[in-house]
């Protein structure tokens, strides 16, 4: 078995100069002096074991940034005028210093939006959050019903998330979000998600499922079919103004009408990821050594990585070659998602595996038989069974509470 990594598009011999004026999207392709917003995963530890976890989280990494190191990163973000960060994990709230770092960031003009499965959001924390400015909470839910959600996120995870939503609503928290990764199993529930979210006075956010982390293992099973993608596109056209998307569905713009937001890959240009051990990757969906730009512990810190790393320099120019540039829809979808191509073994200057014009399917079929898709060696998945683990993979679930099942079950 030979693993051949698809190469990044070759950087042009001389980097083209940034144009003056023109569209914002064209400017963004040349990068910014600091990210617009960055994702910062505080820990790889997580109480859940979601089948599609983009960061293969589960166990804490012993090399994770200390409280003092995390504070130094926040100081630097303040100096660089990064006005807010998306904090995630793992489950960020299981870090004992999570609430301290939240306050520290806010005190240093770095607003925080954090993603959580709700495990720590009891009434007291909900009240604390409701009383804090510049903090935004995002509850992850991948099914509008426990049945659909718990199959991928684990038994009891729907109940945990909805309890947290109740606590936030009761505490008078404003503008909190319900964040959904759209899969083959929940794409038919979009209206239900909207209704559920509305019932808590929250805002719905839906994002694209990528074959990153453990997501690669279940990609074939969970990514939306072509017919579902078309439905999703029409749903977004009809409801897009009231739903957040992280601008993640830009590959759907090739159906015709551009979706609201920035339709381009922002990796290393306007976004990036700081992982729990301080490694800086081009995007949250690209935890792989090929997209590792440096570490915040290196001399010069995050700023030097963002502004000076060879990888990010290379990503900061428009794509000029490859099959997609000849396509009539290239201006709409810009070739799609880098991470989705990479982790399905497709060349980065070719079509997205979910290309709505069908070129992705052709490209997937044409992959060399002896070529395997690159896999990240960074994996913090739980090694043993996890309480209430997801049933999608056909592994029998361990009851969330032992009392949920008769003590005599299986004994006759």
């Amino acid at each position, binding site marked *: 078995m030979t693993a051949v990594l698809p190469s990044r598009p070759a950087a042009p011999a001389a980097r083209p100069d940034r144009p003056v*004026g*023109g569209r*914002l999207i064209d400017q963004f392709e040349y990068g910014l002096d600091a990210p617009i917003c960055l994702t910062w995963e505080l820990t790889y530890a997580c109480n859940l074991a979601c089948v599609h976890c983009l960061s293969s989280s589960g166990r804490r990494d012993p090399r994770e940034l200390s409280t003092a190191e995390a504070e130094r990163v926040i100081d630097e973000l303040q100096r660089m005028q990064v*006005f*807010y960060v998306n904090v995630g994990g793992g489950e960020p709230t299981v870090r004992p210093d999570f609430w301290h770092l939240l306050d520290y960031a806010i005190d240093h*003009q770095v607003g925080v939006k954090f993603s959580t499965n709700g495990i720590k959001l009891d009434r007291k924390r909900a009240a604390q959050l409701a009383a804090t400015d510049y903090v*935004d909470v995002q509850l992850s839910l991948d099914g509008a019903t426990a049945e659909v959600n718990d199959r991928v996120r684990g038994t009891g995870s729907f109940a945990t998330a909805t309890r947290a939503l109740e606590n936030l609503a009761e505490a008078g928290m404003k503008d909190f979000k319900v964040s959904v990764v759209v899969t083959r199993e929940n794409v038919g529930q979009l209206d239900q998600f909207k209704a559920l979210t509305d019932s808590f006075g929250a805002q719905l956010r839906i994002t694209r499922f990528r074959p990153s982390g453990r997501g690669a293992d279940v990609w074939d099973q969970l990514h939306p079919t072509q017919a579902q993608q078309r439905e999703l596109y029409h749903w977004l056209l009809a409801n897009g103004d009231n739903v957040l998307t992280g601008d993640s569905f830009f590959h759907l713009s090739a159906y015709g009408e551009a979706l609201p937001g920035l339709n381009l890959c922002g990796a290393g240009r306007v976004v990036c990821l700081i992982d729990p051990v301080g490694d800086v990757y081009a995007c949250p969906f690209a935890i792989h050594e090929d997209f590792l730009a440096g570490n915040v512990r290196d001399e010069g810190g995050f700023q030097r990585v963002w502004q000076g790393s060879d990888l990010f320099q290379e990503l900061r120019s428009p794509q000029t070659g490859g099959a997609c540039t000849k396509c009539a829809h290239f201006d709409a979808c810009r070739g799609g998602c880098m991470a989705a191509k990479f982790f399905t073994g497709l060349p980065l200057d070719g079509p997205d595996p979910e290309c709505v014009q069908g070129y992705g399917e052709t490209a997937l079929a044409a992959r060399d038989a002896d070529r395997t898709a690159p896999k990240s060696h960074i994996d913090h998945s739980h090694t043993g069974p996890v309480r209430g683990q997801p049933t999608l993979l056909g592994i029998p679930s361990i009851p969330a509470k032992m009392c949920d099942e008769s003590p005599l079950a299986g004994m006759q």
Partner: protein
Amino acid sequence: MTTTEPAAVDQDPPAVVFDPDLPWQRARSVAMRPEPFGALVYHFGNRKLSFLKSKLLVRVVEALEQHESVHATLTACAVPEAQRGAYVKALADLARSQMIERRELPA
């Protein structure tokens, strides 16, 4: 085409009457981060982001507080006559998203 219109990524619809004959200023809860093409503006209150797509527009926004009206600011910053309309429109957009605010003249 060179446009100076700041494309607001998010827009808030509260009705703000933009009168370019009055004095304006960068809103006090707004920070501007210089970028190679212009600037990124961020409103700490409503958490909206906008972009100023030219360096001249950045200078205009910063200079608003020193002049008695938008028109006077555009003159002081030597904005070419042909682009005045585009700049007034850009500033009206910024007023709508609360990135600039009315300034009270000292009595």
